[in-house]
């Protein structure tokens, strides 16, 4: 177990190194980068230096005058020593900006995830126990429709129905017009109110795959021999399904849940952009399109670490939950 962990950790570090390098390479090769855009703007001011001079000066100022490889190692050193620098677009320290926006995304993702579990697992189990029944078809269609719905289309439909036609929610934004005049409880309610549509969007879009997964696993378990044995013993159907079968269905589910926990920090880029929720997804989208290297590097390497940690966590959890799995 320990050897396995060490090996996995070392591999993760190697992978992380390459991922960060690729991301840095991409950011540096971007034409019309942040610095070039800024130099162009500055050189257009009346009586200003020409574009080339500004470019040179700004490149030196932002540390882009080095080659890609030395620049990358500088960046890597900064990342590893926790010196993340200042965001170019938001002109505040990267960590500060990150801290401002991450919690909205985390709350949104967390609530959506819990709702997904609460909806997907019971429905998936029911669909599997009544395979090929009308319920099963309904659940399958619902799940596949959820998977097939493009986020932006579904979000727009929700906006049209609930914001425009019914007027229950604001079209976009996290806080209402009179947010500043509300007391603490009112502010909380206001934010919660604005998060309803984004969370519904997230849940409907992603509940499908979890539901399908639960159904497939449950079917697999229900087809196994020990379930037949349990039935043969004369146990009630309820006990067979919810005691014997369901527990074993949970094994792969736990790994999925464990694996997707870090993903909660990743934010929902499209949903946040559509609802103009100032979460990490939206912020990083703005940073990336503006070519803000420090922020994008921080966010993307953060995501990479989360993914690696998630994979590792899933493996460990699998071994913890299922004693039959021996990690070599």
């Amino acid at each position, binding site marked *: 177990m320990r050897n396995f962990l060490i090996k996995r950790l070392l591999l993760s570090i190697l992978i992380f190194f390459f991922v960060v390098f690729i991301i840095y390479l991409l950011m540096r090769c971007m034409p019309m980068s942040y610095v070039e855009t800024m130099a162009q703007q500055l050189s257009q001011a009346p009586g200003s230096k020409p574009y080339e001079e500004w470019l040179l000066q700004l490149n030196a100022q932002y540390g882009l005058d080095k080659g890609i490889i030395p620049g990358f190692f500088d960046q890597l050193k900064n990342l590893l020593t926790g010196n993340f620098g200042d965001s170019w677009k938001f002109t505040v320290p990267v960590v500060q900006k990150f801290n401002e926006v991450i919690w909205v995304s985390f709350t949104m993702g967390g609530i959506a995830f819990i709702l997904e579990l609460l909806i997907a697992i019971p429905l998936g189990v029911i669909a599997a126990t009544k395979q090929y029944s009308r319920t099963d078809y309904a659940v399958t269609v619902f799940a596949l429709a959820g998977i097939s719905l493009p986020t932006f289309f579904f979000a727009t439909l929700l906006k049209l129905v609930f914001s425009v036609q019914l007027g229950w929610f604001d079209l976009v934004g996290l806080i209402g017009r009179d947010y500043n005049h509300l007391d603490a409880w009112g502010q909380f309610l206001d934010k919660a109110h604005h998060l309803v549509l984004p969370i519904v969007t997230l849940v409907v879009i992603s509940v499908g795959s979890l539901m399908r997964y639960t159904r497939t696993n449950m079917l697999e378990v229900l087809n196994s021999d020990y379930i037949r044995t349990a039935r043969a013993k004369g146990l009630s159907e309820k006990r067979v399904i919810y005691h014997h079968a369901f527990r074993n269905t949970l094994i792969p589910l736990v790994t999925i849940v464990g694996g997707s926990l870090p993903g909660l920090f990743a934010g929902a880029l499209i949903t946040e952009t559509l609802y103009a929720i100032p979460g990490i997804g939206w912020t990083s989208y703005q940073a990336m399109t503006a070519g803000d290297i420090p922020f994008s590097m921080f966010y993307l390497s953060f995501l*990479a670490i989360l993914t690696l940690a998630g994979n590792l966590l899933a493996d460990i959890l699998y071994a913890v939950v299922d004693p039959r799995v021996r990690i070599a």
Partner: protein
Amino acid sequence: MRDNMDNLKGKTSQDFTNPVRPQQVPETAAKRHVDKLLEENRTAAASGGNGGDQEYSLNDDRRVKVLSPGALVAKRFFRNRLAVVGLTILAVMFVFSFIGGLLSPYGQDEVFFREELQLKEFAGATMNNEYRYMVADGQEFGAVLQAQLGLVMGKEDSFTYKNVTYHVTEEGPELYSVDVDGVLVAMAYKDIINPVATGATFSFDFSYNALRAYAHGESTFQAEGSIYDLDDGGTVTLNGEEVAYISRLIVQSKTSGTVISRELRERVAEAIENDETEFTLTTADGVQQDYALEYDAATRSWSIKQETPTRVFDSYTFPSAKHWLGTDKNGMDMLTRLMYGGRVSLVIGFIVVFISAVLGVILGGVAGYFGKWVDNLIMRVVDVFYCIPSMPIIIIIGAAMDGMRVDPQVRMLYLMLILGFLGWPSIARMVRGQILSLREQEFMAATEACGISVPRRIFRHLIPNVIPQLIVICTMSLGSTIITEATLSFLGLGVKFPFASWGNIMNDVTNSYVLTSYWFIWIPAGVCLMLAVLGFNFVGDGLRDAFDPRMNR
């Protein structure tokens, strides 16, 4: 024995479809037996000459229907109602996109125009509130004198400047004349004499007498040896012919080269008097023109706007017989764009999946077959790809292409390459996993013993066994690729105008006016997108069930 050999040979490719699954082995063995018997029967029937359409006894082998594994899969697939629904949806979408585009009478980027009456600034009108000065022929009355006159008007009847005394006479309301020792020098007035003939000017004598007569309410006046008639409206006629008219309203044309007709001027005066905001004027040639009148308090002027026909994009027209789904903001036919958009979305989906499948199969096959360090290397690359968040990367590249102003057509190509390149790791992982277990099977030992070359072993004997799973994974990822492309196009980073794609058609809803008022712009595109993806998912799901031997329906 020979018979048996032939049989084996004929069945090889089919048998290899599912060698992993032990459940299938007895089934195929039985089938082989049946096949053999059938073969014997057929030869017997051929030699005996009695045809096949006779009644068989109950335990006759010929009553058993024999299906190849492929036919079994097809049978299972078509028994799945959802899969059939999905297949139908896909067929409809394909016909709609690929044949619909040919049938549509319009082009993808054909712009429609319409004539629209737009109010355009035509003229401005002001009431003259400033005194104007006119100097008699051969006299001097400069700016200083004008200022002096302004000071005394209505208060005193004379002023002195440079030892000359000027007498001021109030001839009527807001009409003053100045004389020096009985000789008229100048006059100050507010009513303006407009000539009927364009470009005509009037002498001081004429103006003075006309204005005086107008102020006094006289009906005739004499000037320059002629007798003019003057009516209440201020029209001056000479021998029944209109010469000029007096009015305080100044109407100036805003566009050069247009002459404000007298009718218009009078109509404007009337409209201002009656506080009208709109009026219609029929010109001499019988053309009816609509005008709008707006008062601007800040400049104390009226602006006269004329409705002029203008050629504009026929944008956001509601569905009609001509445009079944209306037109978009650029005045292009929505239905046609939807068809071409479907073509782009589907073609991009197929090419992307094809690229990732080819890469994934080759790399996954190689990794799985060789194992050891090759496997390790390729799998670590796969891990790296898994770790790179794909959406942010595509967004960065999209923004970069925006910066480089890549041609939309080339951009589409790049998009396919990038999406294809980012998609291969999951396929490679699946292929490798399958091949790891397949290569331990006996038939691989057989290929090795036969001395078949390695590439042939991988691609002829291993990969065909992965095809079922490959088909399923490809069908499923077709759906997700189409969604990814649409999302990118929706964000403005994918397929660009003038090319249509279901995503960039929906891009218009970022304008909330379109969202609320023009459903026909975005709902059809969204529904098409959803249906296509749903079709792929239904079919993929059905295929997975059909290929799975444990599913016995």
